[in-house]
């Protein structure tokens, strides 16, 4: 039997060993020995398009129900496997194309019929924890009636001393698109079968700035090639509706910086995330997210957060085209238009020993008035939505 002094010393040694980790493992989510299962059920509902922004007819949009399951367990010494499974059902109408009204003001034409769709996706992540490095391999697959995607990714985290670590990663994705009714009598110009590929690389640094502050900064570069258009969208060109047509390559650059600041006296942690984005379609964006994780007692978390997003337009985007373009690229997709968005959310979490339940609610509002630059003509299809997520976690 150990003496109290020896037991205390052993505990202190164990604690020190657990905390004597490189910068990338200094936080709680790394190298845990627990097995856990987590489920999330989410409901997403887009707001109706105002009647004065449509050509008439359908104004309601997408509703999406999502269920996701995550299981994670250590396997062998220093290895951990995490499996994710997700299923979602979507229903509703979506923006089809934009046309000018009698005054030249752009109005949205919605897809005539309600679209019903479901998607199943799964991924497996195998991670190895070394003393000064960590390696991960991820395989994933996603399928829906008209789309499938297979992807693989690898990541290495390497300690550069005890305060800084380097992470390097690479990923590849191969997607196949087989649009519903492609090439049919009703939609003869719609694509029948197309492919796209994506290669991605990430390099970043994580540093412990103080006993209460950690910072991570990373550069990401992605090369996309193949069919990058939306097969279900059209664009109005000189009064005629033509298929959405985008360049068949797109390179994307992102610089992400994340700060975590502990405020121990308040029992809180502050999260600050920023991303700068630029791509070869000359689209640029800024994203800023702020979250406050307030602990109340040993069991409650209250987490309010806000997010701001602003993007410029893709160089070939127009709400509609009064003349044809030499490069043949046309898109009136609201996602390529200039706009800004503000989002706010609140999460409550209560733990019960090895279990926890959580509930979060988010609202997202987008518009030309939120953009950093001046938006002369706002796309009528910009989206607003509500999302609520219920979660349950169990660990042993």
């Amino acid at each position, binding site marked *: 039997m150990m003496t109290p002094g020896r037991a205390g010393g052993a505990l202190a040694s164990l604690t020190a060993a657990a*905390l004597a*980790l490189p910068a990338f493992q*200094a*936080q*709680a*989510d790394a190298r845990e020995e627990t097995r856990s299962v987590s489920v*999330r059920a989410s409901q997403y509902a887009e707001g109706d398009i105002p009647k004065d922004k449509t050509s008439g007819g359908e104004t309601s949009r997408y509703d999406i129900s999502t269920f*996701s399951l*995550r299981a994670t367990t250590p396997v062998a010494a220093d290895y951990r496997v995490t499996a*994710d499974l997700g299923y979602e059902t979507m229903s509703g109408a979506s923006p089809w194309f934009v046309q000018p009204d009698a005054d030249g003001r752009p109005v949205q034409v919605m897809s005539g019929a309600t679209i019903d769709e479901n998607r199943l996706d799964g*991924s497996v992540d195998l991670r190895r924890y070394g003393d000064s490095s960590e390696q991960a391999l*991820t395989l994933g697959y996603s399928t*829906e009636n008209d*789309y499938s*995607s297979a992807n*693989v*990714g690898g990541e290495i985290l390497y300690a*550069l001393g005890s305060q*800084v670590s380097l992470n390097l*990663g*690479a*990923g590849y*994705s*191969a*997607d196949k698109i087989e649009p519903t009714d492609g090439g049919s009598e009703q939609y003869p110009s719609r694509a029948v079968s197309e492919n796209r590929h*994506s290669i*991605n*690389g990430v390099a970043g*640094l994580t*540093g*412990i700035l*103080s*006993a*209460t502050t950690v910072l*991570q*900064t990373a550069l990401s570069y992605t090369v996309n090639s193949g069919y990058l258009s939306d097969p279900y969208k059209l664009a109005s060109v000189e009064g005629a509706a033509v298929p959405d047509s985008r360049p068949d390559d797109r390179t*994307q*650059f*992102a*610089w*992400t910086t994340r700060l*975590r600041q*502990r405020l121990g006296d308040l029992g*809180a*942690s502050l999260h600050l995330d920023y*991303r700068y*984005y630029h*791509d070869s379609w000359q689209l640029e*964006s800024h994203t800023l997210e702020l979250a406050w*994780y307030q*602990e109340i007692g040993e069991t409650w978390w209250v987490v309010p957060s806000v997010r701001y997003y602003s*993007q410029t337009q893709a160089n070939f985007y127009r709400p509609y085209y009064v003349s044809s373009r030499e490069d043949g690229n046309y898109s009136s997709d609201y*996602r390529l238009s200039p706009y800004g*968005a503000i989002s706010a959310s609140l999460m409550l979490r209560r733990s019960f020993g090895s279990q926890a339940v*959580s509930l979060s609610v988010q609202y*997202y509002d987008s518009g030309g008035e939120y953009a950093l630059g001046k938006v002369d003509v706002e796309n009528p299809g910009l*989206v607003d*939505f509500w999302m609520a*997520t219920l*979660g349950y976690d169990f660990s042993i």
Partner: protein
Amino acid sequence: MSRLLLSLLLACLCGCASVQPWQRGELAKPTMAWDPDPQRAALAGHVYFSKEASSGGAGVGGGGCGCN
């Protein structure tokens, strides 16, 4: 832009204080994780990916979907 990025990377490397292992208790708090709720973060990321033009920076791997 490249100078700004280089400056930030150098600041990260040089600005790191020597925090001893026994001083890292606060960093190990669950709310200090990069994503304390990774599933919720993944769901939100998927929504932003399908409703906004920007993507990237949230790790490697992952594929597209018919939503975008």
